[in-house]
């Protein structure tokens, strides 16, 4: 039977990335970066160090300079990126490197994997995390394309860890046909969303254990306790379906799309509710800019809207005639 427990090695990826992020890209640093007018979401030096750790090339084949691992390993990484609200174009660069590699441009894939080129992403009429000279990823049901970004004009966006802009782009640099590329993107986003749900679950539980009102720690109040429990349930459910989807998408099985869309749907619903409830659990303090709660709320909002409308996800979930065992 499919084994959904992360292996030692997979757990190692999570642990190492968690450590790196805690040291090099803690939320205090994300806030500093966000405060620089016109600045990047993440500085080049840090970006290159992330690339040096192989983060952008986990699933790239070895001839494209990658590590030859799979989506399951990427999920372990992206869960941490979500959990710690890492800024910068990780998801689009990882997907972009794949488009380059499968589109036949191994050199470009290598450049992306090594952090020499960054890949931003389209978001409705805007783009995110794209600077002039970067690449821009466009996804649809048939596969993906990379364009050169020519000009950008900054737009204020709600997520302080993400740069929003209007952009002009050139003709596609490379394209690849891959009907499972959207599924892959859904899995990566679902992993980030799971990280968010886990982070706010822990944040709420920590606060509920220590904040005293009416003479008790507020976690003793069933309303608070049950909101925390709901977060734990959402995390458990999402994790199981996400890991399942990661394996099925990597293997390219028949219902991969369905399972990926299911994971994304559950991840969105879990993170949406958990990040909102987390603010409620914290009372006034959770509503301040200084507290991190709103950063999770806003990142979850971004990840909910990043691919397409929720309806496309629903169509993918409802597409198969029946659940196949």
């Amino acid at each position, binding site marked *: 039977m499919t084994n959904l427990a992360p292996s030692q090695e997979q757990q190692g990826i999570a642990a190492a990335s968690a450590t790196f992020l805690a040291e090099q890209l803690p939320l205090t640093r994300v806030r500093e970066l966000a405060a620089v007018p016109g600045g990047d979401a993440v500085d080049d030096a840090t970006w290159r160090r992330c690339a040096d750790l192989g983060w952008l090339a986990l699933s790239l084949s070895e001839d494209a300079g990658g590590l030859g691992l799979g989506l399951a390993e990427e999920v372990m990484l992206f869960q941490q990126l979500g959990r710690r609200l890492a800024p910068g174009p990780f998801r689009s660069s990882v997907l972009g490197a794949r488009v380059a590699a499968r589109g036949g441009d191994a050199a470009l894939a290598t450049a992306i994997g090594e952090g020499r080129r960054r890949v931003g992403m389209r978001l409705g009429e805007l783009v995110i995390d794209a600077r002039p000279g970067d690449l821009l990823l466009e996804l649809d049901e048939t596969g993906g394309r990379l364009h050169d970004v020519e000009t950008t004009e900054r737009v204020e966006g709600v997520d302080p860890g993400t740069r929003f802009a209007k952009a002009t782009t050139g003709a596609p640099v490379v394209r690849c046909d891959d009907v499972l590329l959207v599924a892959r993107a859904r899995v990566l986003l679902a992993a980030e969303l799971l990280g968010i749900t886990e982070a706010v679950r822990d944040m709420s539980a920590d606060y509920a254990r220590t904040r005293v009102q009416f003479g008790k720690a507020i976690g003793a109040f069933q309303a608070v306790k049950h909101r925390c429990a709901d977060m734990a349930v959402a995390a458990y459910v999402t994790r199981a379906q996400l890991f399942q989807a990661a394996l099925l998408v990597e293997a390219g099985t028949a219902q991969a799309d369905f399972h990926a869309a299911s994971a994304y749907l559950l991840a969105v619903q879990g993170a949406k509710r958990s990040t909102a409830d987390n603010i409620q659990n914290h009372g006034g303090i959770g*509503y301040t800019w200084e507290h991190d709660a709103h950063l999770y709320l806003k990142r979850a909002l971004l990840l909910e*809207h990043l691919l397409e409308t929720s309806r496309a996800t629903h169509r993918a979930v409802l597409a198969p005639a029946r659940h196949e065992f």
Partner: protein
Amino acid sequence: MELDTSPQLKDFREEARTWLEENVPDESRPLSSGPEVREYDAAWQRRQYEGGWAGIDWKPEYGGRGLSLIEQVIWYEELVRARAPGPGIFSVAFGHAGPTLMARGDERQKTFHLPKILSGETPWCQGFSEPGAGSDLAGLRTRGVVDGDELVITGSKIWTSYAQWCDYGELLVRTDPEAAKHKGLTWLIMDMRLPGVDIRPITSIDGWPHNCEVFYDEVRVPLSSVVDRVDNGWSVAMSTLAAERGPGFLDQRLQLIVLVDELVDHARETGLIKDEAVADRLATARASAAALRSMAYYQVSTAKKGEAPGAETTAIRTFTVQMQLELTRLAIDILGARCLEWHPWTRRWLLDFAAPIAGGTTDIQKNIIGERVLGLPR
């Protein structure tokens, strides 16, 4: 139950409608945290005052118009219908401080403060919550020590909206640390310009400093600032909170009707109204908005003369908060990816995360309904 057919009220509504058509400011409220918000709100309040539309149901001796709560409700409705600005920085003065002074203040306090509120001269802020005592007011620790004919205040208050632009604050302090938790509190009028008051803005979720933390370091206020008497502040604070259950904030609640109509318009224009999932939620929002108004009528109709609104009217606030959260989330869903660009609805959605927290959490409100209305054990 009876439909009103009195020509007087019809005339009053017409008169209000006409005045508002001519007087609602064209410029919208500045999106700012500077003094210009006070200027804007004060100018609009002064305009209402000069037009004879301030304090519709406040007594004439304090500058009000001396009409009934019914006319006040009609005025609120017409404000909303006219898309007039809200009370802004005067919310606490109208919704809290004014009603509390009227119910519990002495003649001197009423004569001095109430007219200044109506004329837009003195906005008020609220200093109840503390860092360690949010919904648990009985746990307040800011101290007030009687020293001759003065009270010396030391401590800190949090979530004080607009503290930096307000002249007065309603402050709840602990004057008897030996007494049981909800005893030994005192409700006083704080002059926010006194030495020893240190105001530090707190930036909210939307990036604006809507609230402040206010530190009081041996601030000396005259005992004549105490409302009712020293150590009886819990009972005064209960009047303040009861006023919150009254129709005082009705204009702000009714604003939700406007937001629903905006959403319906937008959904019609974009064709999104054909999406059944959107239509279902819009219909619920709109029915709920209708109920906000009906609840105000019901509350006014069933209010017992001279009594504070009963605990059962807590239902209005609980319902409003829930509806508001669903409504602004619906706005986000209608916007789709555009919600990520600080659309006004996005800002509204973010601001509304305060709704189930500020002024007592929804959890506590539901406890109150369970315990005081339904008689469930604590």
